[in-house]
């Protein structure tokens, strides 16, 4: 069908997107594209058949004599029966084929994550992502928020948990979605095949700011990943300028520290995103704002107008405090 | 075009009431029994679903419900089928006098059952707000209690109705017959619930 052809065209032109199931940069998503293509072809053929039959049935020029006016409205011509048998067989064969192709694709997806070389735990909260890289040796573990970095070509197992309501973990360029359910543990397998910057997003309605719950995903070379990981292992730098020091003091002694953690300082809150390497991330507040000085000001000064309903209160900071906080936050690379 | 009638069969000799599946209300009662049966079946499915979350059932430190009240209830319930069958037969035999005598007996049994049910709630050894186990046990017992109370109320009203001249109407005997049918449904559904509330928490510790 023409419209479906158009869909295929649009997908080809749009494959560079950071959040699209037509990306194909992960093993599972590449399987998705293949399977989708197969289904699309079969479905288009079926649709054309139905449409053609309907068009001919309604608009062909003929006068059958099997109607009320000819007192013969129950008769049917000889073609109906064989046509029905053929149609049923066609549907049955088509469905069986599609079911089997779908089943084997699913098996193939399940194999992707059979030998994970990297494990992380993603815990969803209203409306942000808590991310931990898990190692048996705790000193090698890293905690971050609203971003994950993955080395290309390495199978990853992601353990999924939720602290409040049901969310869904979805990075369309890499793989399909998996729910995070309080009281249950689920997992997702990722096998990124191409480096790049992608975007994930919560896909299960989770309350007021469901729309602003994104996850920045960076797939990079093994060397780049190790560099990033090494930096993440560092604790926060010591503030240098008086302004930074003022911000540091405010954050570690006032409201901020009761929720946020900054490793290497006395700020040890556990209910909000870890800020140790805050300024190294691509965005603020789970993809709500791009990371830049202006947006840090805007966010810290009034988070409720930037992302209404989120759990960070607008506390009415004085201008001096605000300058200090932003200056200090910007050092957290 | 409006068709002129061509008269065929005369229905004036048809009877104006019938028992069992020939009665319209019988189909209504069956439909409601299916609805409530589905409700019970789903509640039982939920019971097993929640049970599958637990290592042991009843979960420690809660002990399983005490057996006395529930078992007594079950015994009375089963025995009530004797007068219930008598009523059903009397109704089918158009024996209004017998129906009028037996309805107070069924009403008294209903009252007795409601009282025993009160003791049952007191013997569960768990509250609905303690955990999911408590919630589903209470839910099953509560659901069944609504049926006991409904049918008891229904029997009381029917008793009053049958005392009036309405009782002479054969259609009221059809009602009596169907009330007795519903009572069978109430005690039949109780049997699996009795097992789920009182015995499964003992056997799966």
């Amino acid at each position, binding site marked *: 069908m023409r419209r479906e052809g158009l869909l295929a065209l649009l997908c080809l032109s749009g494959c560079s997107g950071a959040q699209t199931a037509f990306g194909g940069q992960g093993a599972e998503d590449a399987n998705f594209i293949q399977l989708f293509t197969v289904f699309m072809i079969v479905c288009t053929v079926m649709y054309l058949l139905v449409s053609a039959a309907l068009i001919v049935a309604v608009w062909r020029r003929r006068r059958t004599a099997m109607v009320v006016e000819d007192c013969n409205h129950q008769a049917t011509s000889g073609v109906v029966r064989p046509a029905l048998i053929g149609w*049923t067989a066609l549907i049955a064969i088509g469905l069986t084929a599609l079911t089997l192709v779908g089943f084997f694709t699913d098996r193939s997806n399940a194999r992707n994550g059979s030998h994970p070389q990297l494990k992380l735990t993603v815990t969803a909260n209203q409306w942000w992502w808590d991310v931990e890289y898990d190692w048996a040796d705790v000193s090698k573990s890293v905690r971050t928020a609203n971003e994950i970095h993955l080395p290309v070509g390495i199978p990853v197992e992601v353990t999924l948990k939720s602290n409040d309501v049901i969310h869904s973990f979805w990075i369309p360029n890499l793989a399909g979605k998996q729910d995070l359910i309080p009281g249950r543990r689920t997992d997702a397998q990722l096998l990124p095949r191409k480096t790049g910057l992608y975007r994930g997003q919560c896909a299960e309605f989770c309350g007021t700011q469901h729309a602003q719950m994104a996850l920045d995903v960076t797939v990079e070379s093994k060397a780049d990943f190790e560099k990033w990981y090494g930096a993440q292992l560092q604790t926060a730098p010591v503030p240098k300028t008086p302004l930074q020091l003022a911000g540091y003091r405010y954050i570690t002694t006032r409201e901020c520290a009761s929720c946020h953690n900054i490793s290497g300082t006395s700020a040890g809150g556990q209910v909000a995103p870890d800020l140790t390497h805050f300024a190294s991330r691509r965005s603020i507040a789970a993809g709500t704002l791009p990371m830049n000085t202006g947006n840090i000001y805007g966010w810290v000064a009034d988070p409720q107008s930037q992302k209404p309903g989120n759990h960070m209160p607008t506390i009415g900071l004085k201008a001096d405090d605000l300058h200090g906080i932003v200056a200090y936050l910007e050092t957290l690379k | 075009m409006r068709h002129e009638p061509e008269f065929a069969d005369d229905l004036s000799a048809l009877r104006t009431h019938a028992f069992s599946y020939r009665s*319209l209300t019988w189909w209504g009662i069956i439909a409601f029994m299916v609805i409530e049966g589905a409700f019970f079946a789903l509640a039982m499915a939920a019971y097993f679903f929640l049970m599958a979350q637990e290592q042991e059932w009843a979960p420690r430190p809660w002990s399983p419900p005490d057996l006395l009240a529930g078992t007594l209830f079950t015994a009375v319930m089963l025995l009530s089928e004797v007068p219930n069958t008598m009523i059903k037969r009397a109704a089918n035999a158009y024996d209004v006098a017998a129906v009028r005598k037996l309805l107070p007996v069924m009403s008294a049994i209903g009252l007795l059952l409601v009282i025993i049910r009160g003791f049952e709630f007191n013997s569960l050894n768990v509250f609905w707000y303690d955990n999911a186990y408590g919630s589903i046990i209470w839910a099953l017992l509560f659901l069944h209690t609504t049926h006991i109370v409904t049918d008891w109320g229904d029997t009381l009203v029917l008793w009053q109705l049958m005392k009036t001249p309405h009782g002479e109407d054969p*259609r009221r005997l059809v009602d009596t017959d169907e009330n007795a049918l519903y009572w069978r449904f109430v005690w039949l559904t109780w049997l699996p619930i009795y097992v789920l509330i009182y015995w499964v928490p003992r056997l799966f510790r």
Partner: protein
Amino acid sequence: MKSAAERAKLPPADVPRDGPNLTGEELETKLSTTWSNPPGFVGWLSSVDHKDIGRRYVITALVFLALAGVLAIAMRLQLARPDNDLIGAARYNEIFTMHGTTMMFLFAVPVMQGMQIYLTPLMIGTRSNAFPRLNAFSYWMYLAGGLLLWIAFVLNVGPDVGWFAYPPLSGPQFGVGKRVDIWAQMITFTEVAALAAAVSLTATILKQKAPGMSLARMPIFVWATLVTSLMVIFSMPSVALASGMLLSDRLVGTHFYNPAERGDALLWQHLFWFFGHPEVYIIFLPATGFVSEIVATFSRRSIVMYPIVVMSLVATGILAFGLWVHHMFATGLPRIGYSFYTAASMSVSIPTGLQIFCWIATLWEGRPQLKVPLLYVIGFIFTFVIGGLTGVMIAAVPLDLQLHDTYFIVAHFHYVLIGGAVFPLLGAITYWFPKATGRLMSETLGKIAFWMIFLGFQLAFFPMHIAGIYGMPRRVYTYPAGMGLELPNMLSTLGSLVVSTAVLLFVVNLVISARSGRRAAPNPWGAPSLEWATSCPPPPYNFPHIPLVSSRTPLWDAGEKLPVVHGLRVEDRELVLTTVMSAEPDVREPSPEPSPWPLIGTVATTAMFVCSIFSPWAVLVGVVPVALALTAWFWPKSPRLSGSL
């Protein structure tokens, strides 16, 4: 005084009955007196006439359609551009919740049941439906539930957790306030209403078919009604139990869905979708019934392969209960079990494919007349098949895991529900409008509205497939620029404006035609089924004499005269009960008089339900007036000493 047994055996006494000696105008005057509503407003409120109830159902449902449609436009305006700030997050969440809830619970199911309540007794040739007071109660409960939800919305306590209300988001900890309680009680109201209507319809169809109308001679729409009524009976208890447990979690502190106390959030999803998936077919199967009737009439011939169509309806009704897990592929259930649900989900397309075959074959073998109802059927096939095929796609787990909860799904189910149910509904309204009003709708306005709705619909919903694949999740109040979502969203918004204009045009046509449309003869389309044997609109007693049926298409096979049975009393409401399978006349059954008690019972029940949101004790106190109202409702009017007559 004679004993009841003796009286039961008495021969019939001499009371007026319809027959050769009492027919024509004299009969109709007498029947009118017996079957009319009492005068005045109270009489209107007391009506138990299925035509009144059905009409009220349909009109009320169309009002809710309009309200939910306005919400749809509001959402489309918000989503027209990225990062739009027309509607805020909290308000948007309320709006999409109200849109989904209203469309599913207050429009789609009730409008289909309304059509069924109106049409079924006419199509099977009986004077009234079974349990007419229960039927009246059903409507009032539905109205009360709808009012509760919308008054709450206007008072800014409307629900905001989606029409699916997944806990824990809807639970006591995260769903604070009364919003969710109102949603859950609205569910209770519509449950009771739908179940009551389904019981009435089932009993009507099984026991009140005109003599001779065996199961194998029933119109396909009546088959569809029987199947959907049974589906309602088996599926609605599931959501009633689910919402009851949600309410008790919220109001009395149970822990069914609370993982901290060993409850489970997924229990809700199982129960909800065990109802929710059949619900789709409860909406869709009556629509296929409309299609079968319209196709036969406008092809001028019997439907091809009637038994296949009927078996398809039954098969769909059964398969619908084996699919619910395909809504839960992303919840991490054991993966191997998914293939069963994939296969089951795909297999539903076999009966549906067979039905489509039979419709096209009927058109092929007949002489199609392209009147407005048939246009809607053609539009339905073109549109619905796309929705069916995308349904096959998302039955496959690897495709669903990407497409689930995206705009692809939004596109899919609007193709299925609007294309599959609303298009046939609009065709059916056009088709049966003369039956209900005595006037025909304008063909010209009808055709303009059809083309605008059909094309506007494609413009509004086709781009959503693309938006979904491009990563747009459902239920988001905004989306960022630069993800390729701008164009599809703008097209959808434009399309939605076209559709809403066209629906307005349809309503204008309804209003104009009801006032001044062309007068309709009893059978304006030359249709085969019994509802066209009586006048337009039908009298309160439906038929002066009860037809005697000897084929599937009685009006096409009758000659100048229509065979009828006779001998029913005319000074009391009386109808014929027939046997279930072969429809042999069996019993003359009195039919209840109009009564205000169903309405009073509804008021008492409403008070109990609404107060229970604020205190669980209201259930114990409130049950007393409910019980009193029910007793008054069922108490016989006067000792029917004429019971045996």
